[in-house]
């Protein structure tokens, strides 16, 4: 495996791979194929690439229509548009009739090539998680993104797949199997449990390294599927250490932190700290600068873990 992969490249290559396997797979683009890399699909399958122009509401509706006649539409656009601009369309003609539409939500999180808060989607997990019928997945790396796209295509019904623009570290190898609705223990630990989702799970792993250097043993659990959740897996991981930090490249409201808090609140109340974007929008800037300024770096996660340990040990 390479050290890092860009999910948008994975998105494009996986679409091509899936198109060979599923003759009824089509791709709908919202005038962003050279950003999302869906252009690669168009080069391979020009007849199955449907440009919908800068009109996301119609994009979602056309996808619904295609699904009703037996096609499998994958959508290519930015998360920020697919979540917000056509939320009513997603709700009424995709989620309510439970149609087989796959949302490839590119450029999610803060990495949007310096375009700033207008193009950064940091509340999608909250919004999508509240949508009945939808499966919501935030892969940690390119390997998992590919597997999640395979799982989405194989499973009937609407899926939201959160994808990141720029190269991020690869943590899984060929032996990894993505199972929808199951958490993945990335690292065993005994003092505190760090729950992550999406690429933030990789930063949680790095935070565990920082903590280990101080003699703190952190368990790291990746939650790739925000919906359906894995209540048993979450409770088990929380019980093991009795202290929980959640971390996500997303607002702390409504996303992973809320999901874990809901499960633990009902089944196993556990001291918990939510880490992520503190109810703010982002801004333009280099990726590293954004992660630093908005407190998403591994050392910030380690800080949150230390603070929780101080008050409860």
């Amino acid at each position: 495996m390479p050290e890092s992969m860009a999910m948008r490249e994975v998105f494009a290559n996986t679409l091509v791979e899936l198109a060979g396997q599923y003759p009824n797979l089509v791709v709908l683009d919202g005038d962003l194929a050279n950003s999302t890399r869906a252009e690669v699909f168009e080069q391979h399958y020009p007849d199955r690439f449907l440009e919908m122009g800068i009109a996301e509401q119609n994009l979602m509706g056309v996808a619904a229509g295609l699904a009703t006649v037996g096609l499998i539409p994958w959508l290519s656009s930015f998360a920020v548009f697919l979540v917000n601009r056509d939320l009513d369309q997603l709700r009424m003609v995709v989620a309510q009739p439970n149609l087989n539409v796959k949302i490839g939500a590119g450029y999610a999180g803060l990495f949007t090539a310096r375009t700033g808060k207008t193009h950064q989607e940091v509340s999608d997990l909250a919004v999508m998680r509240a949508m009945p019928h939808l499966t919501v997945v935030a892969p940690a790396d390119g390997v998992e993104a590919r597997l999640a796209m395979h799982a989405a295509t194989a499973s009937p019904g609407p899926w939201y797949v959160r994808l990141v623009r720029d190269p991020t570290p690869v943590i899984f190898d060929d032996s990894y199997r993505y199972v929808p609705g199951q958490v993945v223990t990335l690292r065993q630990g005994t003092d505190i449990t760090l729950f992550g989702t999406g690429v933030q799970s990789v930063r949680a792993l790095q935070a565990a390294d920082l903590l280990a250097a101080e003699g703190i043993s952190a368990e790291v659990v990746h939650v790739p599927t925000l919906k359906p959740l894995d209540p048993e897996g979450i409770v088990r991981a929380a019980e093991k250490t009795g202290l929980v930090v959640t971390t996500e490249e997303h607002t702390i409201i409504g996303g992973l932190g809320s999901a874990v808090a809901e499960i633990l609140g009902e089944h196993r109340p556990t001291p918990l700290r939510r880490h992520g974007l503190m109810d703010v929008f982002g801004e333009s800037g280099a990726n590293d600068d954004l992660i630093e300024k908005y407190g998403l770096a591994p050392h910030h996660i380690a800080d949150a873990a230390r603070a929780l340990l101080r008050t409860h040990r």
Partner: protein
Amino acid sequence: IALYATLALRGFFPVEELDTFDEIDSRLQGHPDMTRTPGLDMSTGSLGQGLSPGVGMALGARLLGKDFHTWVMLGDGEIQEGQIWEAAFVAERYRLDNLTAILDYNGLQQYGWTSAVLNGKRSPRMSIEDPRRLWEAWGWNVLEMNGHDVGEILHTCRQALSFRGQGKPTIIISHSVKGKGVSFMENDYNWHSKVLTDEDYARAMADLERPLGGA
């Protein structure tokens, strides 16, 4: 409700089931739900969303090599939604001549706004003036018909089908009167979603005994 009555008469479900309309557990929801009601190709309800799935079905037919024709009913109020024009643009761009929309042009919507021109029978709360101009600008074929004349409806729909192969989607502007046939409802926007009293119902049914098409 007219949709459900039509489906029942066409045998998709028993006519008696119409009595369950909008009751709990009914297959006949307040707005059409394709997951519950037999015979529906799409769920609708939030206005302005129907044309896009129609475009998807017509595109799908082409991709799958099927020759079915897609028909979409539009209200003249809902074409104020921007999504309609997104869909109209894409339908023209993909030359979808296997798609026909029918615009129910009764001039009224739930509330609307006062028109400066009071032209006789039309309500002063006019929904839209001159839809032909708009659809022609979007590159569609435009036909017009009397939406209360069954013979003319059949003729116009056949004419729309005859345009297949010409590379343009078609819209039929169906001139209609809201509340047609019920004297006290005709052209009154207040009846958009009002429930009848028993007395109103008796009067309405008496009016409807007269044949369709009689002014």
